């Protein structure tokens, strides 16, 4: 079996005295989409923040391309090829749409994604490129947030709650673009509360409950009841 792209081993995470993750492990292979689901406060976003370096962890708790990255700062992790689409999109309001994309690419990591390719992936953005990012609709903002992350040409893209606050038709549209991202050689971890959407897109799934993995397996083989049990802890 080839070495996984990302390997998380026995990861703990704390907010002060509060422990959010307990010995969590997972692996992501190249070209794979992994869904992480779970209730509010299960530790999904914390997991992504740890991988992205926004929360530092034990050096060997996270390995990427075989190298330990657990103790790297966020801006160094981006340079290694991991980009996060943060929950709530978090665009830079004083930057235009295009500037938001450009700043995602300012590290100059080589790869397939350029401004033109982002506009091909999301044609709706091209004509609004000079609009302040705060003037965009929620769906367009989410596209820019994904585009901003892609501009760093990541090998692993972390998506936190893509569906948050968006109409179902917009969410479907966004998820329909994910395969074209994977085709460029990028793996994805998608964190979602919308379980159906996430499981449909992913090959592997992980259900978190109170900071621990309650259920893991191939998303197609997980039964609805098993997920419900893992989700609510019944």
């Amino acid at each position, binding site marked *: 079996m080839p070495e996984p792209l990302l390997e998380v081993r026995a990861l703990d995470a704390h907010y002060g005295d509060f422990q959010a993750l307990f010995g969590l492990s997972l692996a992501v292979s190249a070209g794979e989409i992994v869904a992480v689901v779970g209730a509010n406060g299960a530790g999904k976003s914390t997991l992504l923040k740890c991988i992205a370096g*926004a929360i530092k962890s034990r050096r060997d708790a996270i390995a990427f391309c075989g190298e330990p990255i657990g103790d790297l700062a*966020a*801006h160094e992790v981006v340079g290694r090829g991991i*980009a996060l689409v943060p929950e709530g999109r978090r665009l*830079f309001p004083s930057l235009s749409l295009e500037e938001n994309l*450009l*700043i*995602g690419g300012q590290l100059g990591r080589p790869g397939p994604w350029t401004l033109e390719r982002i506009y091909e992936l999301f044609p709706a953005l091209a004509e609004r490129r000079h609009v302040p990012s705060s003037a965009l609709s929620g769906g367009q903002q989410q596209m820019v947030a994904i585009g901003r992350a892609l501009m760093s040409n990541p090998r692993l893209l972390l998506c936190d709650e893509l569906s948050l606050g968006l109409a179902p038709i917009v969410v479907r549209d966004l998820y329909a673009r994910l395969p074209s991202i994977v085709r460029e050689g990028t793996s994805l971890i998608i964190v979602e509360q919308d379980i159906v959407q996430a499981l449909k897109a992913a090959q592997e799934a992980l259900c978190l409950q109170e900071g621990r993995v309650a259920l893991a397996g191939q998303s197609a083989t997980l039964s609805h009841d098993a997920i419900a049990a893992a989700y609510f802890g019944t």
Partner: protein
Amino acid sequence: MTGWGNIVIQGVLIGGLYAMFAAGLALIFGVMRLVNIAHGDLIVLAAYLALIATDALAINPLAAIAFVAPAMAALGYGLQRGLLNRTLGDDLLPPLLVTFGLSVILQNGLLELFTADSRRLNAGAIEIASFQLAEGVWIGVLPLIQFVAAIAVIGGLQILFYRTALGRAFRAASDDPSVAQLVGIDNRHVFALAMAISLAVVAVAGVLIAIRTNFDPAIGPARLIFGFEAVIIGGLGSMWGTLAGGIILGVSQAIGAQINPGWQILAGHLAFLFILAVWPQGLFPKIQG
């Protein structure tokens, strides 16, 4: 009437200098919400560095800017990276206290090294050169150079902020420092660059003011307050507003001084208070809340 015209023009020209004090302050507040109480003392430090350079190398103080500006920029980078970055956070108070302490250290350090004697930089014949713009309106060459330098500095900062990749990083780090790191920006480095640029501007302003008026180790806070007033009159976050703020301050002072020499400083403060009372956001605000 030409008498008043003259006064307004002199006020505008000195206003350019105030705007340069203010631009450095506005830059670092805009990028990292850091209020630098030591800004005025750094202006004085730049003047003393220029004094050393002119004495040691026997050069014109205007040429000394070529040495002082890079030195101050390097100092700014180190200061931010080694000290001030550690004070930044959700709370505005720690950087305020630390820069206040820095101000005390700078004043006493300068006093120790250079005594309390009042000093001035001598730029030679250019200081008294002037030309007649219109009947009865004379313009000094040096004040004009200072004003043009101020416009160039502020225009340059404007271009830097809105037309370059570094400016984009400045604005992104200002908007949301934690997300800025997620897109690969090293905030510690970006903030240190902002302080370096701020102190390079301080160096230019500090040398120009030291050619114009006397300085001593304790004069920093008086410089600082003009900078603050110009920033607040202009409105936070707007570079051209800062220039307007500096000019309003300079013109008010010039008019005050004409009415009664003792009113020069007071008139500037009154103009500042009036604008603060009527337009609390300043004349050209860009940063809200």
